[in-house]
Structure formats: C-alpha cells, structure tokens
C-alpha cells in the first residue's frame, strides 16, 4: 500500500495538499508533518510492508528538505521511500543538488494541483499503486 506523507511547515499548504490528495483519490488518509523531524520519527518506526511517497518541502526551519533526505539514507526502509520535492521556487542550484539523490522522483513548484496529481498517478514508478478502474 502506498502511504503519502506531507512534510511542510506551512499549515495552509498541508491543509490544501491534504484535501487535494483526498479529492483526487490519490490517498484516503494523507499523513501530515509540520516538522521534518516528526516525519523521520514516523518513518523510523514504519513498516516495510508499505511504500511511502513523501511530498517534501525544501525550505523548512530546523531541518530542511535536503537534511531530511540525508536522514532517509540512513533508514532501513529507504528502498520503499519515494520523494517528490516541493518548493515555492525552484532554482538551478536545487536541481543540480537533486541529481545526487536517487530517491527524488520529481520536482514540483508549488502549488500542487489536481492536474499534478493525475500526472503523478501515471509515473511508471507510482502507476502500480493506482489500479485502473475498469
């Protein structure tokens, strides 16, 4: 089962993204974290029976998106983790940096829209989790 984690310090962003994921039938229960550290805790104790899609904000206080990614590398379930980098503004440096992390499956400049959700479902790596309604 694919669990979707929203990691963003912005309350409204979490709210909007959560509602979008539910309404677009991306996931029934998005798991939201205001702090990256909370997400680290969650994942450390998470079951490797599941797969985890992380919608990760780059700019966050205390632990930013990059630092969080370094943490994931240390996790036992890192194979089951996919990261979608989300930022209000993506510059050239970020994209260069992202090449070093094979976890990152895509970059999305905020906001994530319903259209984005449909496109994500079509990504080869995610497609298996979204069976086509016949």
């Amino acid at each position, binding site marked *: 089962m694919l669990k979707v984690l929203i990691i963003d310090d912005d309350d409204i962003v979490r709210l*909007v993204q959560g509602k979008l994921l539910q309404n677009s039938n991306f996931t029934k229960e998005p798991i939201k974290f205001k702090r990256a550290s909370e997400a680290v805790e969650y994942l450390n104790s998470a079951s490797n029976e599941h797969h985890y899609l992380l919608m990760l904000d780059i700019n966050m206080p205390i632990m930013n998106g990059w630092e969080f990614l370094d943490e994931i590398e240390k996790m036992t379930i890192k194979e089951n983790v996919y990261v979608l980098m989300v930022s209000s503004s993506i510059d050239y440096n970020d994209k260069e940096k992202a090449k070093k992390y094979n976890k990152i499956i895509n970059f999305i400049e905020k*906001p994530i829209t*319903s259209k984005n959700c449909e496109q994500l479902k079509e990504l080869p790596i995610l497609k298996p989790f979204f069976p086509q309604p016949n």
Partner: protein
Amino acid sequence: MTYTTGVLDILVIEDHIGDYILIEEYLGEEHLDIKLTRAATFQEAKDKLVNTHNYKVVLLDLSLPDVENNETLVKNMVSLSTNIPIIVLTGFANKEFGVKTLSLGISDYLLKDELNAPQLAKSIFYSIERKNIDLKLSESERKYKALFDFSPYPMWVLDKHTLEFLKVNDAAIKLYGYSTNEFLSMTVRDLWVSEIKEEIQSIWQENYHEKFNTSVKHLKKDGSIIHVEILSNPIDFDGRAARITQIKDITGQKDAEQALKHSEKRFKALVQDASDLIMIMDFAGNLTYVSPSSKQMTGVSDIEMIKNNFFYYIHEEDLKSVKENMLKLHEKKRIKIPIYRIKTANNKWRYIETIITNLSEDPIVNGLVANSRDITEFIKQENKLIDSLKRYDIVAKATSDTITDYDVVNDKMYYNEGLESIFGYSKNDIENTGAWWNEKLHPEDRERVRSYSEDVKNAKSGNIQIEYRFRCADGSYKYVLDRSYLIKDEKTNTVRIIGAMQDITEIQNYIQTIEDHNSRLKDIAWTQSHVVRAPLARIMGLVDLIQSYPNIDEQSQLLKHINTSARELDDIIRNITRKTEDATLKPR
C-alpha cells in the same frame, strides 16, 4: 733733258776711237755731270764690270775685236751686268740682230748711222728707268713668293676650272703629308671627305668667280680627318685663271670646343634635371637664372619666376633672416640659409633651405648661386613629432598617470612625478632599476605580469595593457592599469618600454562596491522570490482546489485562507520594496 741726281756713270764698250769721241760729244751736249769709262775690248769691259758696280748704263758696240759671235757677246754682257741696262749700238747692216738682242735682255738698240744726241740721251734715260721698274717688280714678286712659300699657314694655288693643284707651300706639305709632286698630280677634290663633298662643291660653284671662306673637313695622306677653315681668292697665276687658298687647321680647336660642349651639357643637365632649385641672383635679389626644377618645387615655371625678385617669393616673417644671412656673403664665400618659406603657384608655402655661393668674381657666373632644397616634408614630420611630444607632456601632466621609461639594455627605469604623488615614493626611495619596480608588484600578480610581458616582447605588437596591484610607500596596494609601448631596434629586440601607470584603485573599489551591492540585491531577490511565492502558491493551490472540486466541504474556510494569504503577499511585497530601497547604491 737733264739729270739732277748725282754723277751719271756710263761704261762705253767701243773699240773704234772715233765712234767713242762722237758718243762723248753727244752725251756732253745733254749731260753736265757725266763720267764716261771706255772699254775697247770685251775682256776690258768684263774686268771693269766685275770690279766696279757704279755704272748706271752700258753702251755696247757689237763689233769688238776679241768676240766673234755677237749673240755670245750679248749673252755674256747681260749676265755680267745684272741690274744694269745695256744699250746696243749697231751698224745698219745688223739691224735685224739688233731687234733680236731685245729678247736676250737688252734694253734698247740704236743704229750708229742715225745716232744723235737727244736720241741717245732719251734711250739712256728710258733704259735706266725701265731697269729700275723691272728691279722693283722682281723684288716685289720675290717678296710675294716668299710670303707664299714660307707662310706658316698651308696655302696652295688651284686651277680655277679644274681645281688641279698648281702650287703648294711647305706648310701644306707638312700638314697633309703629300709631297709637292703628289700634290701637283691631284685636285683639291681628293682632299674632301665624302660627307661634305656636295656641300663644298656647291659653295665653290656659287662663288666661282668670287672669294669665299668656309670650314670643311679634309683627308690627310695618312687617312686621318682634319677640320680646316679655308679662305680662297681668285687670282691670275702666270696668266692662268686660278684660285689661291689659305688653310687654317682648326682640328684642335674643334676638339676643344666639343669637349667644352660636353662638359657644358653635363653641367646643364646637373642643374636643369636636378630636383634642387638653382638660381643665380645679385645681392638685391634680382634673378638672372632659375632652373626648370622651380616648376616641380613651387609650381612656378622658371620663365615666370625669373620675372620677379627673389625676395618676392619669401614669406614675410622669414624675409629679415634671409636678408641677414645673405649679407654674410660679403665676408664668406658660402652660406646656408636654414629654413624659410617660399610661395608656390597656388599661394601655399614650401619650406626650403638654401646654400648660396658667391660667384660674383667669376666673370661667367657673375652672381650669387643659390641651391635650394625642399624640406617641407621633413619639417612636417618634425612638427608632428614636436606636437606629439608636447601633447604627451600635457597629457602626462593632466592625467594622474605615472609615466615610466625603461631602458631595457642598461636596466635603467625613470619615472615622472607620478610615482611620488600617487604612490608616495620620495626621490630617495626610488632606485632606477627594473628589479626595484618588480619588487613593488603584488606577489600574486608578479608572475602574471612577467609572463604577459614576455609574450608581448615576443609578439609583433608592441603594446602592453595589463592590470596589477602596485605597492605604495606606505605598504598599501593600488590597482594599476598599465599601458606600455615597446620600442624595438632593427633586430626587433625590445630596447625601451614607455609606459603609463594609471591608478585605477578608485575605479576598482567602485567596481567592488557595485559587485557587492549586486550580490546583495541578488540575495534579496532570491530570498524574496521564495518568500513571495509561498503565499502566492498557497492562493493558487486554494483556487485550484475549489475549481477542481466545486463540492468540496469547508469552502468558506478555504476562502478565508485565500484572503489571509493575499494579505500576507501584500505585506511581503511592500516589505521588499522598502528593503530594496535601502540597498540602493549610495553615490560616493
């Protein structure tokens, strides 16, 4: 009829005494002062004639006892009494022979039977006079013959019609090399060289009966050609129509003339074809000669130029110095007028320099010879150089540049006051070596400057433009823009480097400030774009959500979030504007 001039000596050769007395009587009637001498035989007459020379006349009776043949007697008498007239006295029977004696040199003959005093006196008088005239004539002929024979000028006599040589003198023989006999078998045509044959023939024809003179070329016997002047006169030569011609050999003169002509031609060419302007004038500037090169130098032809005074062409400002220089010619043979301007045909000025030689004493030149050279181009170049040096000096003073002059060969470096005013080094601090300068370079720049300089030295272009830091006397560094020019010798070795060190520290600092501000602004822009995009992205996300799912619950809450985010965005934008204003560059 009487003689007034002295005693009349008469020799009477008469063997018959009677006849002698008779003659004495006749003569006595006519002459007061006569002296008769009697010879009775030829031998007696001969003795008297040999010893005495005072006889004015000889009276000869043909019938003498010691001479049988009258003709022999007459001949002997004539030869004995040269210059003395002989009158023959003869009998009637010998009349015929008497006439014949005239052709033998006898002055007169008288018949004894018809003899009387007046007749005898008359005959004596005429005979003496005729003999005198004959003597004078033969003397004159002798003189003229000598003039011809011994004249230093070659002369000859030609037949008027055939031009055969009739007589030639020694000088002609000597000049032409032909002997007298050879000459006499030739005509003058044999002397004419073929090229002038027609010409001399026509001159001769035109002056057939006249005298003429001309110059011709003659062939000598040895085949060489001589130039001669001839003067030819028609004469009567022993009854024959002839020409006497006098020859003057002018070959040497011709050769000298030719040599002179060549030399003249050469000098003329030197003067006329030279680019220098040659003029001959007097002290007052009156021109007597101007070489054709005036046209080339000034555009005024020599013919035009000579019409005016030399001073007319000289620039007003230069006139005084030119005249002063010329006055020195009174003491010096040759002077030089350095630089002055002369007017050209189109009223422009050319710079010339002139060397004047005083040849007033030379009768052929009789003036001051001025040799002028156009130095306008030279002056122009010189002026350009002076201007550029002046400009450089002014520029060097006007700018804050430090001027460097490096003598590569001797490793000597010189600076202007910029090194003191800009970098703070006093005269005592400065060592005039390349090493001293090198040491002042910032260590980080030293290698770069060295290798760049090497490159330039090896390259064809002789310009250096490089920035580096240069240490001041107080230890701080100034940024310098160095523009240097490499001066090379004929082997393209750099021998001198002239440079200008421009202090660009202030510029460099300014640039640094600008760059600092830039990066700060960049920072602000980047940060703010994130900050700005955060609320904007929220609004967009909210709008997308409501639009995509119109039946979504808690719509009023979502709208409230839109409102909040919009306000936040508004605040942020105002904030950015304020911050940007703060960061704006402040003028220095």
